């Protein structure tokens, strides 16, 4: 236990107040989202969110005082535990949750953090030579396991969080941008595989970069092989192996407009809510889109739309600036800490936050698919709020111990 934590110098007041502000804005907006004009009062979900925030604060303080050494020592154990939970939830639970009376425990939330820890532990080992392809393999496998398990739930959005995680962490470890391009090339090929010219362009680009970079023959051939397999298999699987309903599910994911009733309707209504907010908004509790109940899921996934409708562009930018500040704090914590493990952890956690923020807000304004990823600190929901506060607890812990090397 580090008591100096409570000394001003060791507490990142800025980050902490930004988080509190974010949660406060969230609770206020949830109040507004559940407010009923006819009745003149709000539902009780904002009270529940306050309770979650209090529980989250406890979780945050506990995370702050656990010595970082322990996270380092138990990184693989924690990772193993959460992966076991992910398997168990597929078999025994309700595929995503363990139902314990009124409480749902969602292991994929914890898996995000433990995957960051295990990657940080792996990459923190001093002599990782990231110019060699083989150094990429173990972390890729470490992250692939939770991806597959979460994908099977099926929770595509969260599976994507895991996939994105590794890129900035590799970058932070010193990998070159070209290597990172190689890493994501199968995903790019998958997207290009359905259009002949795009595919040709992609293959030429890949070959060009291979010639420029000249990796080992073995690495280069594996890379080409993987990309060609993806390019050939993807259209085949699409045509022959997928049922119509499965294709439709993928297509509506990519283009919500196809599903006029579900995702498409949500996005249209969300855009009307945001657009009609204008510069200054319609005022607190005055949003017509939300109050006349055109906007679904307004207290969870589409909470940003409520802010935009009632507080306008000013409110929206306020939230954006708040998030930029939080992410900037996370980044500078990663820069300042002396310890490699802590530094990688901070980068990974920042990535989780950034991905959630960008995909959620992108969804409400119609530039990202509807994934069901919540907006950190603002969306209603106990398990995400508590996980995010644990995440902040870790960041604050790293900040407090930034001069400590172990």
């Amino acid at each position, binding site marked *: 236990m580090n008591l100096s934590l409570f000394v001003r110098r060791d507490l990142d007041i800025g980050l902490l107040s930004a988080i509190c502000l974010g949660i406060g804005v969230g609770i206020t907006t949830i109040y507004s989202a559940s407010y009923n004009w006819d*009745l003149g009062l709000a539902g009780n979900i904002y009270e529940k969110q306050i309770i979650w925030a209090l529980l989250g604060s406890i979780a945050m303080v506990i995370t702050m005082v656990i010595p970082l050494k322990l996270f380092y020592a138990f990184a693989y154990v924690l990772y193993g535990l959460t992966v076991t939970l992910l398997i168990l939830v597929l078999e025994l639970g309700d595929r995503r949750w363990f139902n314990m009376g009124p409480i749902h425990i969602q292991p994929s939330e914890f898996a995000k953090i433990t995957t960051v820890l295990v990657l940080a532990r792996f990459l923190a080992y001093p002599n990782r030579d990231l110019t060699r392809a083989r150094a990429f393999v173990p972390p890729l496998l470490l992250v692939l396991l939770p991806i597959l398990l979460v994908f099977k739930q099926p929770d595509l959005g969260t599976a994507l969080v895991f996939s994105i995680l590794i890129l900035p962490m590799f970058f932070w470890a010193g990998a070159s941008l070209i290597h990172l391009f190689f890493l994501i090339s199968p995903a790019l090929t998958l997207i290009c595989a359905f259009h002949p010219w795009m595919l040709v362009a992609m293959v030429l680009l890949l070959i060009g970069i291979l010639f420029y970079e000249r990796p080992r023959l073995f690495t280069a051939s594996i890379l080409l092989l993987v990309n060609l397999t993806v390019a050939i298999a993807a259209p085949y699987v699409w045509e022959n192996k997928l049922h119509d309903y499965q294709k439709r599910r993928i297509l509506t994911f990519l283009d919500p407009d196809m599903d006029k009733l*579900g995702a498409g309707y949500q996005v249209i209504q969300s855009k009307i809510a945001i657009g009609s907010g204008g510069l200054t908004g319609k005022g607190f509790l005055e949003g017509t889109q939300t109050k006349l109940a055109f906007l679904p899921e307004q207290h969870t996934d589409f909470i940003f739309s409520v802010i935009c409708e009632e507080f306008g*562009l000013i409110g929206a930018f306020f939230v954006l600036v708040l998030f930029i500040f939080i992410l900037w704090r996370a980044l500078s914590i990663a820069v300042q800490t002396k310890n490699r493990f802590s*530094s990688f952890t901070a980068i990974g956690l920042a990535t989780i936050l950034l991905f959630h923020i960008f995909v959620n807000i992108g969804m409400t304004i119609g530039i990202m698919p509807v994934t069901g990823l919540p907006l950190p600190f603002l969306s209603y929901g106990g398990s995400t709020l508590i996980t995010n506060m644990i995440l902040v607890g870790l960041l604050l812990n790293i900040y407090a111990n930034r001069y400590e090397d172990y």
Partner: protein
Amino acid sequence: MQNDFTYNGIRARRARILFGIMAFLFGILGIRLYMLQIVEWEQYRIKSEKNTMQPVIIQANRGLIRDRNGIILVDNRPSYNISVIPPRFLANIEEGKCNGLLERLGQIVDLPCETITEKLQSPNRHYYDPINLKRDVDFEAISIIEENRYDFPGVEIQIEPRRGYPIFDTPSEISTESSHARHNASHSFPLAPHTLGYIGLINASQYSRLKTEGYRYDDHIGKRGIERLFEDRMRGHKGVKYIEVNARGREVGSFPEKTDPPIPGEDLSLTIDWRVQHAAEHAFADSMRGSLVAMHPQSGEIIAIVSKPGFHPRSIRDPKAWQLLQTDPSNPLLNRSLKGEYPPASVFKMITSVAALDMGILKADEYRLRPCTGGMVFGGRRFRCHNKRGCGTINMRQALVKSCDVFFYQLGLKVGIDNWHRYAAMFGFGELTNIDIASEGDGEARGLLPSRAYYKQRHGFLAGGNMLNLTIGQGELLATPLQVARYTSTLATGQLPTPHVIKGAQGETTSLPISKEVIKTVRSIMIDVVNSPGGTGHRARLPDIVVAGKTGTAQNPHGEDHAWFVAYAPAENPRIAIAVIVENGGSGGLVAAPIAQKTLEAYFEHALPKPKRTNELFVVNNQ
């Protein structure tokens, strides 16, 4: 220090790049928000003011389920729901208070007013969605609401497709024999409820998992059986139409050009023949618990699959009835065909016979074993034959026809547990059948085929007495009716099929490494079991068709014996293999064989081409 990493300069450079990427992403969001809220504000403001367009869901018709001849087993029919759109309705009442309006509504739908207020507050819904107060209401309530619709703003009548069972619902299609049985509760169920399954309201955790796939919080979803397994294919895709509403939420216009019609779900065709299924279900008396599985032995197509007692799929709508079903000691919800595990008893004796014949231990007509005197002493214990007076000196043929236990005790010892286990495993015992409706569906039981290793692990050693019990199909041995039906198919053809219920889902068929002669010999014996004078299976005889069969009476420490009967027909060219068990039914020949006979009769009544009786194969060898 360690390396470049701890050197802040390089870290800071990489951090600047990451911050740059982040700023770029936030820039995109910011620009897009600026476009929406400043540049296009006017346009969205107008849209928001005119936002009187509301989507109305058009339910998609769920796929139908047909039998092998295209006859519809499950269809859709309209039912009426009374529902409320809360924002419009709540304007008239104070929260949580039961005023006159709510009381009146409560009287009409026959719900206490507290229940209504509770329902109106359910959180998991899209705001424009009506909340169902009561489903499937009668016409009287509908007309009262319709007449007084201006007194009940926000209360609506909705038509919703409901699952219907035409074969059960229209008596004219059912044969006269059963129309009098319709008075009897257990007979008035739709066919094969365990296999077809049922749909029910989506529960809270399913909803939160599936809401991104277009489910609404009070949608129906397949809960069990085929309805659950093929939910994705059968549910179809909802359509939507848009209506224009005024400030009070009343419909004032529509936008036909925006309508997105629903896509109906896929129909499913089963291999089940409803006429056979019907005959089989009615062959069970009401009080009977048990199961019947009939399949096409070559392809593994299930022709009929019965589990008794049954239940009505619609009982799930009625919490009281559902509670009764769940607590009923006879466990009507259990699919006994796939999940019931029973000792197979004497129907299992063919395994020992096949092993002995195939290994050349004993010929079918040899008299080499000691006579049966009503029992035998082994390891200091007396093992009895079910025939207390003894069967005398007999050969294998007679032993199977009379189902002599002592003969098989001796034969089992000669074969040995390892060989016995090897042959039994060939016939698929102790393993999943991999029927298409089990994996990912409600599952199936594996049964239990004990091996030497099993006893070593359980008891530390294998006692000789264990083998005596196993060889007559008792002891720890357990099998599901489906496994026994598949075993019967294999006895008929020499090939182990993979059973399936969905048309066209044929799985693989394995040929057993057993000589054709052995199969033929066992067949001739099984023909005798049914057709020879005094054969235990004589109650399964058919007038024109040679039936091969075997009875079984499983001792049950908890009560009456279980009655088994297995059969296939026509013996020379098998087209149907069947397994019947009646729990606590008593003697297999007396109780189970007639059920099999009625089912076979129904099958051959409709089967084309009509099989001819061939007398050459009718061998009675009973010297």
